[in-house]
């Protein structure tokens, strides 16, 4: 397919001999209002997207029999495929959107955070960053050139509104997403 590559790039270069006029320059004003208290905002946003904040870990774990885990705090007793709950760490948490960033490095690979019907994230409060820009800057700094093969910004449980715009949780991924702050 090298011919296709050369042909496409040749057409692109020929087309770009003339540059299109640039759009009006941005003013530099902030697009989003500032985030004042990241942890409080994260909690508020997480709840708004129907995520749960776990107060008592033993109580939460009590309702699950088969657990797959990639963190030391919660011992696992099941494989990812049969687990009712996947317990993972995370890269960071984002106050602006209530998102949890999981990656293959922090979350036991790809499936553990998405295949089991429930997902529990064990995190520390200092992992909360104000916004998406801060999260991407942090990861860029952490991994420049050596990114994990996959990362996901997870905001609430899996959901769909495909049928009559009615919100249903647990479309394909976890029906429940919970966050526990270990410190």
């Amino acid at each position, binding site marked *: 397919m090298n011919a296709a590559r050369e042909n496409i790039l040749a057409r*692109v270069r020929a087309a770009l001999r003339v540059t299109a006029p*640039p759009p009006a320059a941005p003013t530099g004003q902030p*697009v989003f209002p500032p985030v004042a208290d990241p942890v409080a905002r994260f909690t508020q946003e997480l709840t708004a997207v129907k995520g749960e904040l776990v107060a008592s870990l033993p109580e939460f774990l009590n309702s699950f029999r088969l657990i797959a885990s990639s963190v030391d705090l919660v011992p696992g007793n099941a494989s990812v495929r049969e687990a009712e709950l996947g317990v993972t760490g995370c890269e960071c948490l984002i106050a602006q*959107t209530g998102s949890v960033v999981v990656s293959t490095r922090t979350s036991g690979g790809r499936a553990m955070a*998405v*295949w089991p019907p429930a997902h529990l994230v064990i995190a520390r409060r200092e992992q909360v960053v104000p916004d998406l820009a801060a999260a991407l800057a942090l990861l860029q700094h952490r991994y420049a050139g050596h990114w994990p093969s996959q*990362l996901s910004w997870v905001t609430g449980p899996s959901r769909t509104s495909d049928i009559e715009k009615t919100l249903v949780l647990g479309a*394909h*991924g976890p029906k429940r997403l919970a966050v526990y702050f270990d410190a």
Partner: protein
Amino acid sequence: MNLPEQQFRRDAAVKAGDLNHRATIQRNIGLYHAAVARGKTRFADWNEGRARLAQVKWDAINHLDRYLEQFARNVLANGGHVHWAETGDQAAQIILGLARRRGVRKIVKAKSMTTEEIHLVPALAAAGIQAVETDLGEYICQLRGEPPYHIVTPVMHLSRQDVSRTFQEKLGAPPTDSAEELTMIARRQLRQDFLTADMGVTGANFAVAETGQIALTENEGNIRLTFSLPRIHVAVVGIEKLVPRVADLALFWPMLAHSGTGQAITGTCSLVGGPRRDGEPDGPEEFHVVLLDNGRTRLLADVAQRDALHCIRCGACLNACPVYRTIGGHAYHTTYMGPIGCVITPHLRGRDDWAHLPYASSLCGACAEVCPVNIPVHRHLLQNRRNTAGGWQRLAFKFWAWTVQDPLRYRWAGKFLRCAGPFAKLWTDTREWPAAPAQSFRDWWQKQNPHPNPLPYTARERGLKKISSPPSLGGEDQGEGESRSS
């Protein structure tokens, strides 16, 4: 009249008169607009966001050669493979060939307009490879044998009852009135497919040049399962999806989510950069990116319309369009429907067959007003009309310009139009001829003011006309019509 135009006219007429269809669409789009209005409060300055995205996409598209090569280099460095496809057929053949070489029997598919564009599923089916759509909406479409109705919400036109009937017929599921129960039926079915598929095929919302990653946006989790469980992951990526830096996503993600559904950010946004790495417990053994041209370089070569490639496929212009809301998504018979579809389809698939599309617009500009990357969509629709305007159209508009640039001719034209109703059959087939008052404003004015000027007004105005410049047809459209070459 060619076939696409005949189909369009026929289906648009049917849908426009279908009141059930209209009620469903109005309800769904009403909910969408309410969600977007609520979401707007999250922004301090939405327009600044649009300006920034427009600037990033301008940079990406106007230096596309550089960013494409950088992206391809980085995918290779991450352990992935890059394929280049000049046409949709080539792209489908690349994936088919790969599936054959690797002994693939079943493929799970994420929702991707690009794979619709290259007709991947029929191509695979013809070769005996089953490809299962895993997005709930697309799954319903596949069961019904219908194309998606909307680029973001594929079954926007169906009610719960419609979906239940489809599941009863195709899956033998019990009837239900609950959207939740319907979703769970699909979940149970598709989980089996995820476990048994050999290959997962996705599109990409963005391709990051700096890191060689693709970004995928979804709510359901099916895309994550598609690129997590099967042993091969293939992503079909239009060459216009490039963004320079990973940091750019900090704004693209929330703006796309807001325009697409009114969400602050879509349920899951993923970055995938390669196959499973050493030390990772799972993930595919192979990662392939198919970079697709399929007419995009034709649009790129058109400097005046190049910014139509900035589109991030949020679907906002569809929801805003009075024509889309009346005729629905199927009447277009295109992969990309609505205003942006009418802009890009003639470029991607040929002007001759699709020249009618830009006329599926009132040119009201609602599309441009909601566009998160500031594409002047309605101006491109007008430009598309110019691109294909035939001799008689040009002549007619010249005649019109000649008429309205002279007061006397203008007056006589007015008098003629007052009694032209019965002759305008083509126009009045689908519209009312506006009832004209008995006398014109000019006549009325003259009666009120029998001797306002020392000179007869026509003579006076004829004098004025000689010293004023001829009127233009609106600022942005000046003088391009005749001289444009393409």
